[in-house]
């Protein structure tokens, strides 16, 4: 597992990154070679970036995913410009036919209150993507902290942290998220907290195993011998070395968070005053759209979820393959 030394893992990567120097912050730059080194590093990084970009570009599913993601983020951001919020106001849709199947006049059909499905999907993308990303960020932060702590500290503290990770790993996050969001005040923020607080365990585990493998490296030992404390080792050495892994994991986790959001909204735990793809599906269930033949009511929000989650997964896998060369052979 520790076979990939930095040099083997990424030949082009700068092996002399200054940030890893424990004394870079303290000692003034002495001597001219430092300037040359900086230029060298910059060039290497540029080359590396180019190479990675080429690798990403050659991954067709990832490129399709990236384009789709950009599309969805654009429509989420521009929703108020494309379709004003008043088009969601039920009282202004009185002359629109209810349950109109998709047609030229109603591209994705209308719902039980005469609202255009495409407008709802458009507005729903805001909450769904926002919650997915925000919850993921929260879960990544918690997961990284817990994983670092479990991997770095030994003894009682490490064992306790490990036990907590195990607990959250075993219990499905959805169950805990249901509990949290049902007892807290309803709202988008609650959903973010409920998902973020409960879905960090798998990140923590990945971070922990990476921490353990880095911790056994010689440079950590060297730092320790030089008198580096916990915080120095944690933030100057371990954190930078787990970050790439965490970031690749982030893109993979957003998909899960979006699904979790839709599930919570579907169960009626979301903010009913805001559109989200889960809320639309909940409404479709409330009017038994599935058994009454209103297929567009069920199909469109689900396909939106599928596309976004799939895009995040594709991009995440490509990033993971770039960061973790061991996966490339697969």
């Amino acid at each position: 597992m520790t076979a990939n030394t930095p040099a083997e893992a990424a030949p082009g990567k700068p092996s002399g990154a200054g940030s890893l120097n424990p004394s870079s912050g303290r000692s003034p730059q002495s001597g001219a070679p430092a300037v040359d080194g900086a230029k060298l590093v910059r060039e290497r990084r540029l080359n590396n970036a180019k190479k990675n970009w080429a690798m990403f570009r050659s991954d067709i599913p990832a490129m399709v995913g990236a384009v789709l993601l950009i599309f969805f983020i654009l429509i989420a951001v521009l929703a108020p410009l494309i379709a004003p919020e008043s088009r969601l106001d039920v009282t202004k849709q009185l002359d629109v036919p209810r349950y109109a199947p998709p047609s030229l006049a109603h591209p994705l059909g209308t719902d039980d209150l005469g609202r255009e499905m495409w407008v709802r999907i458009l507005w729903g993308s805001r909450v769904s993507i926002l919650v997915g990303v925000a919850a993921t960020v929260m879960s990544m932060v918690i997961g990284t902290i817990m994983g670092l702590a479990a991997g770095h500290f030994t003894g009682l503290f490490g064992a306790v942290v490990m036990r907590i990770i195990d607990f959250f790993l075993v219990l499905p996050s959805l169950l805990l998220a249901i509990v949290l969001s049902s007892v807290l005040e309803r709202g988008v923020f609650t959903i973010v907290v409920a998902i973020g607080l409960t879905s960090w365990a798998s990140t923590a585990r990945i971070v922990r195993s990476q921490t353990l493998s880095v911790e056994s490296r010689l440079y950590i030992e060297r730092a320790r011998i030089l008198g580096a404390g916990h915080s120095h080792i944690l933030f100057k050495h371990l954190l930078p070395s787990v970050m790439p892994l965490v970031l690749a994991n982030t893109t993979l986790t957003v998909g899960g968070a979006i699904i979790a959001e839709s599930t919570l909204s579907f169960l009626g735990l979301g903010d009913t005053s805001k559109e989200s793809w889960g809320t639309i599906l909940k409404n479709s269930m409330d009017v038994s759209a599935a058994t009454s033949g209103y297929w567009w009511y069920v199909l469109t929000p689900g396909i939106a979820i599928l596309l976004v989650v799939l895009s995040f997964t594709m991009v995440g896998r490509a990033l993971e393959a770039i960061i973790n060369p061991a996966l490339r052979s697969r």
Partner: protein
Amino acid sequence: MSTPTHDHPQPTDPENPETASAPESGGPSSGGSAAGGPSSGASGGPASIGPADMDEPPKGGSFLGYLLRKLGGAAVSMILVVVLGFFAFRMLPGDPVLKIAKERPMSPAQIAELRSQYGLDKPVIVQFWDYLVGILTGDLGESYVYRKSVAALIGEYIGPTLLLTATAAVIAIALGLWLGQLSAWRRNSLFDKLASSTSLVFWSVPTFWLGLILLMIFGGTLQWLPTGGMVTPGLEPWSFAAVIDVIRHLILPVVSLVAVVYAQFLMVMRASLLEEMNEDYLTTARAKGLTEDEVRRRHAVPNALLPTVTVVFLHIGGLIAGAVTVEAVFSWPGLGKLTFEAIRGPDLPLLQGTFVVFSAIIIVMNLAADLVYRWLDPRIRRA
């Protein structure tokens, strides 16, 4: 081992900002010079629970020691669940009685009475004690909505849930592991690509949506299968017709649960077998003259199964959580539907009860996984 050299003091920024900004800018310029040797444990695609990395290197000790350690771990988890149940449902929402009072009009006298009925006028520590005693004696309080004891309700509804999840688990495990080992063995073949991409798609949809789609096609349009419930009322229980009827009701919920979960098993099994593919013992087996099928079945797969077992059992928790929405979609009279109703209430005692029971089931399943694992893996047994 080439450790990053420290003899070029750089005036450039530390690594962190650069790495952090990489994915935001969409550029794949991941810095992270110390990113060497990421553990291969993060493999396995979206079901990214790598097979090998979570298990501590098995410590030595007798079976008894192992059993005690695992039992202790499960007990700690159970205690955490119970404590969490108390704090989540009694502390976080503020006053549950006020919450009920908000839903329907009540006089102050009624509120006070409800409060003493639920024991909310007592100090917190006494409430916690009562709650503990209640859980140990099987008394989980009374449901606000059903006006029945929560324990009795759960007893009534647990059977269908176990039937549903067990059926789905067996099918999903069998299907996932079988397809997973086939697609790993024929890596990069058309079959592998199809199996992997299908499972990726299934992995990317919410369970309940798949349920809705199935309901729409087979229950609504084609009308082949019933749209909800568990048995058609009026049938003689345990008669042949009733059993067939239950099976017909079971098909759609099971298919939706299986479709989402088998994908994860497939990914795990595939990743796990791929790890084994380059091992020397397979070359030996081939050199002995075994056919490819025999090498796969008798040598590679058994070894690849080992790390998969733990992951499979971990995902059973996800299966049970998926049951909540699937039961809601298909009105399957189980704990998931009960949870759904409790959320609608909101019926906090009932929700607390289902949470504790669901968690207990999952913890027991994981304990079982640990024990099975030890039995399966002689290295741990002997260690």
